[in-house]
């Protein structure tokens, strides 16, 4: 039901039941917000969005107040502006003034607000928060003095990720956001998904930077510098550098990376293809053995850590296949080293990913052989963009170059791994192709691609029925549990920690809206539609790897390097 309200002496249409803020936004009136996150219930904690409603003594928060028919609202009256300004001034009163050195410089919501509200001096002086830098986690760094206590990270961790490893500790002036027992992050139940970093308005939470490390190695002529990047990085870099994404963009990226100084540029896509084929093999074994337990895909490192600490009973059901990054990493340190005739320690292997948990994964137990890690350094898309800018590469006028052999090609199933449900789809397609020698009807996967946090399909492969479950974001685990409790059986289940999959990874550009994420997913599906090689087993690179390269190298011929192990993890839950 629509009715009119008066805003700034003009009449606008509002809908019954919506908040003042959504009515204003729909009519093109912008109000600053800080603690608000679109998909969440409003808290009204920061009071940034206050407006004046005639007949009310106090200012009301537009984000939480339902709109009513009689309302006469002033959104930018002097009183409102003073109130907003004071709020930001109070937030700045104990904020460290080190914007120039801050991780979020030029990309900070607090900085933007103080600019928008024309704050030109430190009017209120408060006692500065005692600096505390927590660098214990392999992926996420906390700088507590920069925290403005908006509570977004706390809510994301609890409501989206369900790990609940952050909460407000203490009260009043002493309040800060921290993990269990106020210990450092490495003791906590944090799964390094990094969604908290994505929502943090300031630089209080950010990724652990590996740029300096990479730079250091780039300057060493005796070391062979190798980089692998996943398909999502290509979109992410285009976004970060403000360039238009085209299908040829990966070739531009290859050229950029070589200009920076990487000797070899590989695609993680081949690792994804290996991962998909090996999981398809495991699925085939499982179905033949008529096992009752489903096979959980373990490509998402955050999900693996979640399982290890919260649901250790599931560990035996986790697929032992390594994640695409680690498979590519291990291939670089064995196959490539062998081909180039160097020792593995002479190769510095960098991985560019849209994921932050990969930083943690590269340091996992079982991800190194003879003291040499498979992946030496992991860069997020943001870091890689920073590196590109640092090296001053002219991205507008650049030639197209292919990636290096033997890891230059991938199937379109590998690119599908970037969206939730993609790996499961790839595995099923491969399995179907292996059994029936033809691909399944694509229509059947429609239900697997969208529609809620838990999606399932079942399809017939010959005489056997294969039941697939996809958990899109860890909130879907509840539905999976209910479904399993009701006696439903699954053959294979894919779990992605970040809602939407890697397209919503924590390493990509900040401040992305739902639409942009959907757009990324659309690009992924488009690539799958248009690319010629749509199955791992049809990809020339993979065939070459399996038929020739693996057999020629005695160390890796048994494919043992593609598998790892998982263990129960003792953390403060």
């Amino acid at each position, binding site marked *: 039901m629509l009715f009119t309200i008066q805003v700034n002496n003009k009449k606008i249409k509002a809908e019954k039941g919506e908040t003042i803020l959504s009515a204003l936004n729909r009519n093109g009136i912008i109000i600053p917000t800080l603690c608000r996150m679109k998909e969440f219930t409003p808290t009204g904690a920061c009071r940034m969005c206050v407006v004046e409603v005639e007949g009310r003594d106090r200012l009301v928060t537009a984000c939480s107040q339902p709109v009513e028919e009689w309302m006469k609202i002033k959104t930018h009256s002097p009183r409102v502006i003073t109130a907003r300004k004071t709020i930001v001034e109070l937030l700045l009163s104990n904020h460290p003034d080190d914007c120039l050195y801050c991780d979020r410089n030029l990309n900070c919501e607090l900085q933007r607000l103080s600019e928008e509200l024309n704050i030109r001096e430190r009017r209120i002086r408060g006692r500065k928060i005692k600096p505390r830098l927590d660098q214990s986690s392999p992926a996420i760094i906390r700088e507590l003095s920069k925290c403005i206590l908006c509570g977004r990270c706390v809510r994301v961790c609890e409501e989206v990720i369900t790990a609940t490893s952050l909460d407000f*500790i203490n009260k009043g002036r002493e309040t800060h956001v921290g993990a269990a027992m106020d210990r450092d992050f490495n003791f906590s139940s944090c799964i390094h998904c990094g969604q908290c970093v994505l929502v943090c308005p300031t630089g209080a939470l950010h990724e652990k930077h590996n740029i300096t490390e990479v730079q250091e190695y780039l300057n060493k002529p005796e070391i062979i510098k190798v980089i692998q990047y996943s398909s999502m990085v290509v979109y992410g870099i285009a976004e970060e550098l403000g360039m238009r994404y085209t299908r040829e963009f990966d070739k531009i990226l290859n050229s950029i990376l070589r200009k920076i100084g990487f000797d070899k540029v590989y695609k993680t896509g081949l690792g994804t293809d290996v991962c998909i084929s090996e999981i398809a093999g495991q699925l085939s074994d499982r179905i033949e053995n008529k096992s009752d337990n489903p096979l959980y895909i373990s490509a998402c490192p955050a999900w693996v850590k979640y399982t290890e600490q919260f649901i250790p009973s599931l560990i035996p059901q986790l697929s032992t296949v390594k994640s695409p990054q680690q498979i590519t990493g291990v291939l670089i340190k064995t196959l490539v080293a062998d081909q180039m005739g160097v020792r593995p320690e002479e190769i510095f292997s960098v991985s560019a990913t849209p994921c932050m948990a990969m930083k943690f994964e590269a340091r996992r137990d079982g991800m190194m052989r003879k003291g040499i890690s498979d992946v030496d350094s992991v860069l997020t898309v943001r870091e890689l963009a920073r590196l590109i800018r640092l090296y001053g590469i002219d991205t507008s006028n650049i030639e197209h170059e292919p990636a290096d052999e033997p890891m230059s090609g991938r199937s379109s199933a590998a690119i599908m791994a970037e969206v939730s449900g993609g790996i499961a789809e790839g595995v099923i397609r491969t399995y179907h192709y292996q059994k029936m020698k033809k691909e399944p009807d694509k229509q059947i996967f429609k239900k697997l691609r969208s529609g809620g946090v838990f999606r399932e399909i079942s399809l017939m492969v010959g005489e056997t029925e294969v039941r697939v479950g996809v958990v899109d974001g860890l909130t879907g685990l509840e539905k999976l549990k209910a479904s399993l409790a009701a006696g439903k059986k699954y053959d294979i289940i894919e779990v992605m920690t970040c809602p939407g999959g890697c397209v919503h990874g924590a390493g990509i550009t900040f401040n992305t809206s739902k639409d942009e994420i959907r757009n990324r997913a659309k690009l992924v599906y488009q690539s799958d539609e248009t690319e010629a090689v749509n199955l791992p087993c049809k990809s020339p690179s993979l065939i070459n790897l399996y038929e020739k390269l693996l057999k020629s190298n005695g160390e890796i011929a048994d494919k043992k390097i593609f598998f790892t192990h998982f263990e129960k993890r003792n953390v403060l839950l």
Partner: protein
Amino acid sequence: MSEFFTLYNRMSTDLDIILKKYKQGKREDLIPLLQEIQDHLGYLSEEAIVKTGSFLGLSTTKIFGLATFYDRFRFIPSGKIQIRICHGTSCFLNGSQAIINKIREETGVMPGQTTRDGNFSYEIVSCMGGCCNGPVINVNGEYYTHIKAEQLPELIKRFKYIIEND
């Protein structure tokens, strides 16, 4: 003077016995449960918080966050002698700040901390409702009124004597 040590002796009471009184997974029992654990153990140990968390299905982080909100919960063991000093308006006017300073001097620890030998701990509370009786302190449940800073060294000596001779 054996009531001084009841608190200390009760520490041996098993956590599980307390947990058994409550229903599993009932979140609203959290605060009473924590209060009972604190009454028995004298503080909330990490083990107690983790056990409570798995019992009620709550994350340790959440419980710790809630418990730190309330002044009553403490996370390090209290001393055998636990002194609470009133810092309400009336006691403050009658000189409770001098008492706090004197106790800090005598014990050498800050409010909320425990001496290394585990004998003394003290904390500052807002009001104990004995406003007409000057600075009020409470030692293991027993009230002392109209306390003056000069009396404290002797009082603390007495407590020490009791600890050593029990």
